C-alpha cells in the first residue's frame, strides 16, 4: 500500500462575506509511495496549496479522506512537517532556536535538542550561522532554516508549499539542487507545490498537474530522469519533452480562464 492515500477528496470554503460556498478542491484521488518525490503544479487558484494544507492537517476536509500509513489525517501530526512559502521563522529566535521550535512543540524525546538542531543546520549548510537571527539572513538562507526546521522533527512526509516562490531565479535553481541533495540523504517522502514548470520536473519522480474550477487532478506524469540530478539535465531532450507537455496543460488553463473573463 502506498504511504499517502488520498481518496475522493473535496474541500469547500464558505466565503466570509457573502456566505457563498466555494469548492477549492474536488474529486481528488492520489497515492504517493514511500520515499517518492511528488511535485504538484498548476496555475494560481487550482487548489494545489489547499491540497497540501489538507495533507498537513491544517484544513478541514469536506468529502473523502486522506490516509498516511493507513492512519486517517485529522489534524497536524508528527509524521508530517511543512515548509512554508514565506520562511515564517520566528524573528526573535536565532537559527538554532527556530530549528528547535518544532522539536519543542512535539516534545522531542530523541536526545539533546541542541544536538539535533545543529545536526540539521549543518545538513542544510548553515553551520556557521546557527546564532544568527532571521533578519540577518538572505532569503535563500531563511528557506534553508525553514527546511531544517521541518526535517528536524524527523517526519515521514515532508510537505513543501512553494518554498522557493519568493526567491530570485538564480537562488531558486541553487536551492533546487540543494533540496535534492538533502532529500537524497534524508530519504523522506516529499510533496512539493510549485507553479514553476522547470522546478516541478527537476525535482520530481512524479508530477501531479492540477486544473481549476474546482481544483482537480488533470494528469499524473512519471518522470524517469536519472538521479542524482544536476542542472545539466535541464538541457536534456527528455526534460524538453516534459516541459512541452506541462506547458500545454497550463496554457489550456489560461485560455479557459480568459474565456471566463470575456464572458463575465
Amino acid at each position, binding site marked *: 500500500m502506498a504511504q499517502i492515500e488520498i481518496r475522493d477528496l473535496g474541500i469547500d470554503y464558505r466565503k466570509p462575506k457573502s456566505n457563498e460556498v466555494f469548492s477549492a478542491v474536488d474529486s481528488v484521488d492520489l497515492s504517493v509511495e514511500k520515499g517518492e518525490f511528488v511535485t504538484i503544479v498548476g496555475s494560481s487558484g487550482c487548489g494545489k496549496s489547499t491540497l497540501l494544507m489538507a495533507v498537513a492537517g491544517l484544513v478541514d476536509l469536506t468529502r473523502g479522506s486522506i490516509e498516511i500509513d493507513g492512519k486517517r489525517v485529522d489534524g497536524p501530526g508528527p509524521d508530517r512537517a511543512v515548509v512554508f512559502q514565506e*520562511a515564517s521563522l520566528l*524573528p526573535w529566535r536565532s537559527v538554532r532556536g527556530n530549528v528547535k521550535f518544532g522539536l519543542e512543540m512535539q516534545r522531542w524525546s530523541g536526545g539533546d535538542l541542541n544536538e539535533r538542531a545543529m545536526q540539521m543546520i549543518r545538513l542544510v549548510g548553515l553551520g556557521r550561522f546557527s546564532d544568527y537571527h532571521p533578519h540577518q*539572513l538572505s532569503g535563500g538562507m531563511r528557506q534553508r532554516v525553514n527546511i531544517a526546521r521541518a526535517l528536524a522533527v524527523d517526519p515521514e512526509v515532508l510537505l513543501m508549499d512553494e518554498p522557493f516562490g519568493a526567491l530570485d531565479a538564480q537562488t531558486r535553481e541553487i536551492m533546487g539542487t540543494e533540496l535534492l541533495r538533502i532529500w537524497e540523504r534524508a530519504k523522506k517522502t516529499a510533496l512539493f507545490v510549485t507553479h514553476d514548470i522547470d522546478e516541478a520536473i527537476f525535482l520530481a519522480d512524479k508530477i501531479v498537474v492540477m486544473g481549476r474550477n474546482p481544483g482537480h487532478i488533470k494528469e499524473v506524469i512519471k518522470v524517469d530522469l536519472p538521479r542524482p540530478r544536476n542542472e545539466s539535465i535541464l538541457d536534456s531532450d527528455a526534460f524538453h519533452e516534459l516541459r512541452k507537455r506541462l506547458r500545454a496543460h497550463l496554457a489550456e488553463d489560461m485560455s479557459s480562464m480568459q474565456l471566463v473573463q470575456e464572458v463575465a
Partner: protein
Amino acid sequence: MRSAEITAEPAEARQLSLSFLRPSRSAMIGTLAVLAFLVLWQIAPTMGWVNGRFTSRPTEVLLAAIDIFQNDDFLYHARISLTEFVAGFALAIVVSVPLGVLLGTSKIARHLIDPPLMALYIAPTLVLLPIMVIWLGIDMAPKIAVVFLGAVFPIVLNTMAGMSEADPKFLRMARSFGATKFDIFTRVLVPGSLPALLTGLRLAVGRAVLGVIVGELFVSQAGIGYQLNLYGSAMRIDRLLVYALIVSAFGYTLTVIVRSVENKVRDWRSK
C-alpha cells in the same frame, strides 16, 4: 555544486562603529542650534529685547541649579515625586499587562471592553484629578492614581494590539508542528507582542511624568511640582527652569532607555 550563497555575508553584519569620534553633520548643526539659542537667550534681556524678569538667563539658571542641588531639600522633593511616579507606574503595569493579554486573546472580551477603554484612552484622564483629590485626599494617593490612569491605557491597548495582531503565518506554522494553545501563547504570542508592549510603556512614561507634575501643581505639600508652583508664584524663573529641566531630563532619559530596548527587540523582526 554551486553553493556560493552560503558563504555570502549575512545581510546585516554588525560592525564596530567608531563614527561617534567624527561627529555627523546633523549632530554639529543640532549643537550649533542649541548654542545659538543659549547665546540669544543670554543676551536678549541685556539688549532689552525681552524682560529678563520673565525669561531669566542661562547663567542664572546654572547658578540656581548649583544652589538647588546644594541647599533646597532637592532630594526630599525628588524622592516624593519619584515615589509617586514609581508607585503609579508599577500599579499600571501590574494591572495593564494581564488585562492587555486577556483582551488580546479573547475577541469577546475585546469587543466588550474596547469602547470604554478607547474613550478613556482618548479623553484627557487628567480631568479626573479633582475627583481623585475628593476620593483620596491631597497626599501622594491622588497623584499615584493620576499616574496610574495616565499610564494604564497605552500599555493595555498596545499589549492588546500586539497579542491580537500576531502574524497568522506564525500561528499556522506553530499549528503545523502540533503546538497546543498554551504553546502558541507562550512561544509565539508573548514574545511576538513584546515590542508592542514596550511601545506602550514608552508612551506611558510621558503620560505618567505629566501626571505627577500636573497632580503636584494642582495640589501638594511637597514634590517637584510643588517646587515649580512655589517658584512660579514667587517669579523665581531661574529656579523654576531648573526644576522644569530636571523633569525633562528624567522623562527624556526614561524614554530613551525604553526606546533603545524597544529598538533592540524590534530588530529581531523580519522586514
